[in-house]
């Protein structure tokens, strides 16, 4: 998919995510808006996945380590064809497959159950190691929140990934600089993130996490360094695409009221050509 189409797809996914969260009356819309351009570029450009055969052994793997933004993953998977878009209407409803955090047993395309922060990267290391042992060529992508990197388990995994020379592993840090309660810098500062990964032995780059061209180029296999895992720090904004949500900490899990929903919807629709 070309850049323009990716942008259109991302806008459509944002709109679906907004509708889904508004209908359910719950969700983590701020972090979803910050991650959707990353998810779109992965699922519509980079990942070698087959929605009709979601368990194909040689598929690329994606882990949403920031599992609270499940709705963004569900909408992306639905638009990509892993399941019908109508299923989104059941988000958070009793017995729905679409829980507040993704469940691989119930949702096609989900690789592992996330929700506890700091779990995705270790699992990604295991997946990448499995490919190396088997001589397979699938790649592994893990999307972490920046605040999530406060969990020590990430750094256990970061050490191991470099030690095992897992150049088939890419972690993308959704660097929106806001965590649940406050700015990351006012809570437990993580900057400089790229330098930290670099010190652990990773190849790193910093991109605009809302620029499809930059994201796709960074995800390209040709951009990886032999013998090193890759960390892409994607600078993003919480609430990207909706003016009154952008870079506002309260939209971590706030739900728009009717007026806010109409305004957000109008803003996103105007963006769609």
């Amino acid at each position, binding site marked *: 998919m070309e850049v323009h189409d990716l942008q259109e797809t991302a806008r459509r996914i944002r709109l679906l995510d907004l509708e889904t969260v508004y209908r359910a009356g719950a969700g983590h819309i701020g972090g979803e808006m910050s991650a959707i351009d990353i998810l779109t570029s992965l699922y519509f450009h980079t990942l070698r996945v087959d929605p009709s055969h979601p368990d194909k052994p040689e598929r690329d793997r994606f882990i949403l380590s920031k599992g609270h933004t499940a709705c963004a993953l569900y909408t992306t998977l639905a638009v990509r064809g892993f399941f019908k878009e109508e299923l989104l209407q059941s988000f958070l409803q009793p017995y729905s497959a679409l829980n507040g955090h993704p469940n691989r047993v119930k949702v096609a395309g989900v690789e592992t159950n996330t929700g506890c922060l700091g779990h995705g990267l270790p699992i990604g290391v295991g997946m990448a190691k499995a490919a190396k*042992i088997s001589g397979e060529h699938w790649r592994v992508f893990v999307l972490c929140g920046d605040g999530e990197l406060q969990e020590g388990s990430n750094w256990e995994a970061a050490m191991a990934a470099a030690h095992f020379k897992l150049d088939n592993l890419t972690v993308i840090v959704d660097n929106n600089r806001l965590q649940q309660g406050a700015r990351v810098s006012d809570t437990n500062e993580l900057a400089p993130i790229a330098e930290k990964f670099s010190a652990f032995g990773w190849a790193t780059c910093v991109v605009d996490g809302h620029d499809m061209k930059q994201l796709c180029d960074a995800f390209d296999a040709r951009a990886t360094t032999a013998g090193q895992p890759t960390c892409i720090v994607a600078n993003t904004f919480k609430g990207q695409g909706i003016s009154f949500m952008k870079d506002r900490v309260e939209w971590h899990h706030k739900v728009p009221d009717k007026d806010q929903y109409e305004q957000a919807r109008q803003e996103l629709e105007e963006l769609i050509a």
Partner: protein
Amino acid sequence: MSTTTSLHDCRDAFVTTLQEEASRNSQIVAVCNDSIGSSKLAGFASHWPERLINVGIAEQNLVGVGAGLANGGKIPFVCAASCFLTGRALEQIKADVAYSQANVKLCGISSGMAYGELGPTHHSIEDFAWMRVLPGIVIIAPADPAETRSAVQFAVNHAGPVFLRLSRVGVPELFDTDHAFSVGKADLLQDGGDLTIIANGTLTHRAMDAAKLLEKLGIQARVLNMGTVSPLDTEAIVKAAEQTGAIITCEEHSVYGGLGSSVAEVVVQHQPVPMKILGVPGIFAPTGSANFLLDEFGMAPEGICEAGRHLVGNKLVGNKGK
């Protein structure tokens, strides 16, 4: 202890079987946390260096990596001292293994009080409790080399999470070498009608010795080896309660939340009878070897026998009162 036969470290049967299985099944990998020595994986590492993944001293990563390997089609045997494996990585075991239904084999090495004098930081007397509240994990505590061997073979072939609770404390051979472990089924080691002793792991042979002492007192004890704590053999427990009217449980674990609690949950809901739960009595153990501590906590054969005599006495008094 009155055992006269030679004693075996079940880690040997564990690694021998794991290597046999690994030579037939290239998907089997071993994952460890700088624990090649304590998990006896040196042989595995020399045969299949590329299939031995040592993540260093990092248990959260250890279990996460295991889950990722399983996603990639491997059958990972994640080997670490049980105290660190189940304690440090409990959330990874819950979310990445149990909830995700990942095909990971968690091997808790040197469980219970096997580390003896190293003290409560290294004791793993909470692991039955922590593992059994997580849905979908098969929990096995083998009692001798043959059961260990059979349990490893089961773990390879079972699609889903398994927790294999292993000790390093010597135990005698209880089963024939071709013993076929049956998941969720207790082994009737000795029949009797006066009371039932239920044990597993390092306690089974002590329970057998206790039954011999009870026999000298004219008390016929049934002995059940409950190798699988989850799924539990509720049928054998209910039958034991109905037919013998009194149950003692013995385990190298806290008296809270382990084998005794599991059995009691069945007994109180199906066939209430007098019970005695023997184990570590809700304290951090004092300094001592595993065998010393088990004796101290009333689980020498003589201690179990005494608990049995007392329980049968209570049962008779209770009946007379009716």
